[in-house]
């Protein structure tokens, strides 16, 4: 096994792009849902819950893949503050991928509603029904979702900065599996 890969492994890349689609869809579903009183509100909620649990499951798999595979190193000439920003933003992305679905699950539990992923598929409550706890969890879910959206924008801007301005291997390491010929 090479200790210094130049690209992310196939499974890591698949998870990245699949979850990128799911998370961006999820953020848009959430934003549309809370600002609508039309029938859209209802079907968006019915998408939001199972999609959130799917993201949670994939995030766990992804964390395991991350911890058990080698990642390509950042370029040696990357300024120290950009290295820090890269590490911090990835930490935030991983944390929110796990925390946001758990908060959603917990807030429905705290409201006393059954946690239904479909007409019949029900998850157990993970916290007891409690109105004040619900309010805290519901607000955290909303604010942290905005934070995730901002972090995703930053991540996107940084990826394009690497690809278009620095023209280093960072963007390519997630786009492709092999060194460019």
């Amino acid at each position, binding site marked *: 096994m090479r200790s210094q890969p130049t690209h992310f492994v196939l499974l890591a890349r698949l998870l990245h792009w699949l979850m990128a689609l799911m998370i961006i869809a999820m953020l848009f579903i959430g934003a549309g849902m809370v600002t609508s009183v039309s029938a859209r509100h209802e079907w968006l909620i019915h998408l939001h819950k199972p999609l959130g649990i799917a993201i949670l499951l994939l995030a766990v798999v992804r964390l395991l893949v991350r911890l058990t595979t080698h990642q390509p190193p950042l*370029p040696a000439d990357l300024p120290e503050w950009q290295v820090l920003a890269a590490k911090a933003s990835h930490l935030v992305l991983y944390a929110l991928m796990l925390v946001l679905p758990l908060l959603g699950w917990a807030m429905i539990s705290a409201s006393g509603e059954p946690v239904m992923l479909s007409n019949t598929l*029900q998850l157990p409550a993970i916290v007891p029904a409690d109105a004040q706890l619900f309010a805290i969890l*519901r607000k955290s879910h909303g604010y942290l979702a905005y934070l995730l959206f901002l972090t995703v924008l930053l991540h996107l801007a940084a990826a394009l900065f690497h690809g278009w301005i620095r*023209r*280093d291997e960072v963007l390519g390491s997630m786009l492709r599996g092999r060194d460019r010929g």
Partner: protein
Amino acid sequence: MVDRTSPSGGPQRPPLSAASLMLRLTGIAVVVGAVAAAFAYVHGTFDPQRLTPKALVDVLEKNNGVHPGFRRNHAKGVCVIGHFESSGEVREYSSAQVFNEPRTPVVGRFALPAGNPYAPDNSVPIRSLALRFTQTNGQQWRTGMNSMPVFPVGTPDAFYQLQQAQSPDPATGKPDPTKVPAFFAAHPEAVPFLTWVKTARPSASYVTETYNSINAFYLVNSSGQKQAVRWSMAPMARDSAPAAAEQGADFLERDLVQRLAEGPLRWQLNITLANPGDPVNDASKVWPDGRKVLNAGTLVLEKTQPQLSGDCRDINYDPLVLPAGIEGSEDPLLAARSAGYADSYLRRTSEVSQLPATRQEARP
């Protein structure tokens, strides 16, 4: 995270010209800006006219004042505890456990459809009953019913406009008395409700009222067949003489407590089956007489609890919390109720600590 131990940063690229650098930076800004703009669009930022859950609840607060910790509508009420005894008659129409098991526990709430928790009981001619049935499989059926047979309007927008017509005028601090008549003149769909409300008088008791789902739903049986329905809870003991004299502002709760002290109270759950062609998407329209009505079973209420400490306080009676076997219809008011209730629920659960510690009393 990623370690920076690579010995090489790859082949050195030639530096970008100033023009090329600007072009590329602009490209990044355009891509990121487009995603942010799409998000803002979905969020309604560019569409201040969009009816949002927040706008719905804001107009209720504008009309009724803010009473921290209380529901933004149907603010005054009382919790009731009981159970539902299924008759088995609905089994062939719905797979919901509530219609198939003999007994399902219920936490309910009688209320006054007003935004002020201190409104006198005779200020509104309508009473409401909300119920939460908890099935043994953990699924719930929540329903909020009212004593009127139809809703004044059929759409969330019209409901919002009706609320706006009742908002205090900034100049006088009182609602403009011409606005509600003007609204109804422009909304002929309100005629069935207006006809009913002319004859409606504030009842002296919660117990003698019939409570109607108003919105339509679907029953779904185990083979997936759907039947459009509306339901109502009809009192089984029809004594119209109030147990307590109609005195003061809080006679409804006193009357209920007094009657329950003498024994449980019963309602029959009647489920009306729509004929083909009956409107399932418009709560302002009555269904003609002659529809088949099923007796789904009996609601038995056993005791009351004060709404500030009772089990009903923290329940959001969202009419779209439904068990498998009952589904929402195309009625646009259902989604709007669900969305609006969620907003009101977040506001009031954030204010639980501000609720009065003492029992709620009407203000003189």
